[in-house]
């Protein structure tokens, strides 16, 4: 049995789906953020495996940038969460419905 690209892709798909479900189900903002990280990692895995298949360094370069952007995103996202959530502990995402119509 050889490990083909398809296995990696399938794993990435499963991880991505898990991340998506987690994002929809969890209410704690930080845990939701972690699920986003899961999805990003699944994508990274897909990039690298396809880059390996095609013999192109571009896959890994893409991952590099995804990593940087994810880092920046986490920085800003956590700042936002701090700004919002510091008022009350035990707040969940569901309490932020001010923009509702």
């Amino acid at each position: 049995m050889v490990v083909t690209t398809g296995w990696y892709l399938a794993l990435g798909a499963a991880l991505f789906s898990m991340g998506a479900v987690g994002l929809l189900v969890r209410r704690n903002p930080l845990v939701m953020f972690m699920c986003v990280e899961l999805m990003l990692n699944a994508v990274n895995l897909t990039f690298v495996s396809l880059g390996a298949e095609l013999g192109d360094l571009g896959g890994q370069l893409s991952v590099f940038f995804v990593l940087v952007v994810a880092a920046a995103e986490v920085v800003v996202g956590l700042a936002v969460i701090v700004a919002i959530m510091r008022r009350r502990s035990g707040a969940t995402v569901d309490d932020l419905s001010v923009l509702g119509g």
Partner: protein
Amino acid sequence: MVDLIWLVPALPLAGFIVLIFAGRRIGEPGAGWLATGVMGGSFLATLGVFIDMAGRSTHDRRAVVTLFEWIPAGDLSVDIGFLVDPLSITMCLFITGVGALIHLYSVGYMHGDDGFARFFAYLNLFMFAMLMLVLGDSLLLTFLGWEGVGACSYLLISFWFTEPANATAGKKAFVTNRIGDWGFMVAMFATFFTFGSLNYVDVLDASTAGTVAQGTATLIAVMLLVGAVGKSAQFPLYLWLPDAMAGPTPVSALIHAATMVTSGVYLLTRMNPLIADSAGWVPDMVAWLGVGTALFAATIAMAQTDIKKVLAYSTVSQLGYMFLAVGSGAYVAAVFHMVTHAFFKALLFLGSGSVIHGMDGDQDMRHYGGLRRFMPVTTGTFVVGWLAIAGVPPFSGFWSKDEILTFAWNKSPVLWALGLLTAVLTAFYMTRLIALTFAGESRYAEQRTGEEDAEAATRRADHTPHESPRTMTAPLVVLAVLAVVAGFVQLPFSSSTRWLEHWLEPSLYANEVHLGTGGATQVLLAAIAVVGGLVGIGVAVAVYVKGRIAREPFEQPIFADAWRIDRSVAAFMGGPGRRGFEATNRFDGQVVDGAVYGVAGLVRRLAGVLRMFHNGMVRTYATGIGLGAVALLAWFLTRSTL
């Protein structure tokens, strides 16, 4: 010279613009002289064009002078252009001529009035609209003028609008005219639909060539008749004309005697090929409507006590004669009577204005009497007008009325008989007017019925009516001269004396009916008409001057009340009419508006449903994104080949 035709309407328009902005500053009497001068210039321009036209041969007497294209809208192209042909020039001549005289008269009549400049501004605007009406080269330009004269009529009738009755009279005139305008508009739509153009040249040439179906021509002709009935105050749309006497007397003279009310006759005469193309009952309808209105109005005039109301109903009656002429195919006679009527009716109205001016605003003839002593010029010119309208030869009214009656006989003896009866009544009520106003002794200082103050009569005894100033009497004299000589343009003796008929030939497309009666019959008819007129005069003299016959049988209350038509219209409109209008209003509010609001309500409910997706919760939005991504992925999967 023909190219200068644009001066004819442009001068009054310029006068209006100047007066509307600077009139108050120019003030009295400068504004009046300006307006009169402008009209004088317009008359001279018309005269120049007339001389040019008269010098040409008969075939050459039609010219279209286009200024610029006004409405270029696809298939519809309307220019500001003038159709210069004998009919329009004839109309312009007496419109500008009589108009200038009335402007001059108004300088004296409106002396001291607050709205002096405003009056002349409106008068000039009216002249502009009227000239556009007759000079326009398309139905749309005529309609422009048509509406313009209607609006000016409203403005001028309710000139002293601080009095509610005057404002109401103006509104009544406007609304009644509007009903006629609807007919005109439908006719315009039908014309455009049939001919693809609104130009007279296109329409009339096509109609003469015989390319129009009878049904279409009938529709257009009938709708034009509706418009004409409204503007020319025929039954049933005559109700506004007596009320329009609330305006200043020069207005009554100009608009409601000489010019605006002739627009209907002009329109029918202009569109004579279409009337010729329409079904046979259309001219019959016109003739019977005309003679019926003439008789009807004459009976009412017999019992009126307000001098202007008598003249108003007299106008309705004479217009009926013109319609009778049109219906009998005698377009020349209609135009002829239009011209002579303009002269003698304007003369009569201006004369009555002079009387009212001398009596300090009193219009009730029961308070007049013996005025010949105080107002000689007015009396003299008024007598000329009276003889003209009564149809006494050789005054102009005799020639024109006789021509109409001859053609009426040609069409149907019954029409002739009714026309003759109307002529007798006309002579009667006009003589009555003269007798009550100028003859006999002054009744001004008598006690009036219903007057409680016993001293008022003696107070009035010192009053002396005065003759009017030169600016008012001069036009009277000119009009009197015209009322005498105008008849000579169409003498029925031989072909060479029928000058008007030859002149108008290019405009009539050979639709003028030929008389089937011989010369002897014509002389006999004329003689009977003269005798009838003299009988009317004689009876009136016996009743009102000599006092030998009682006056009550002639002054029936039903005549005085105008056959209670006004009353019934008011009752209908107030009662069932109003209920109908309110029902329509409710329909509009509930069904029409309801549909609109219903759509809005539907949108709101839909929005309410969609609002539920916007609950502000992050996770709901994330679900939406997730579902969207799934859908996109599925779509790409199904459409692309893997």
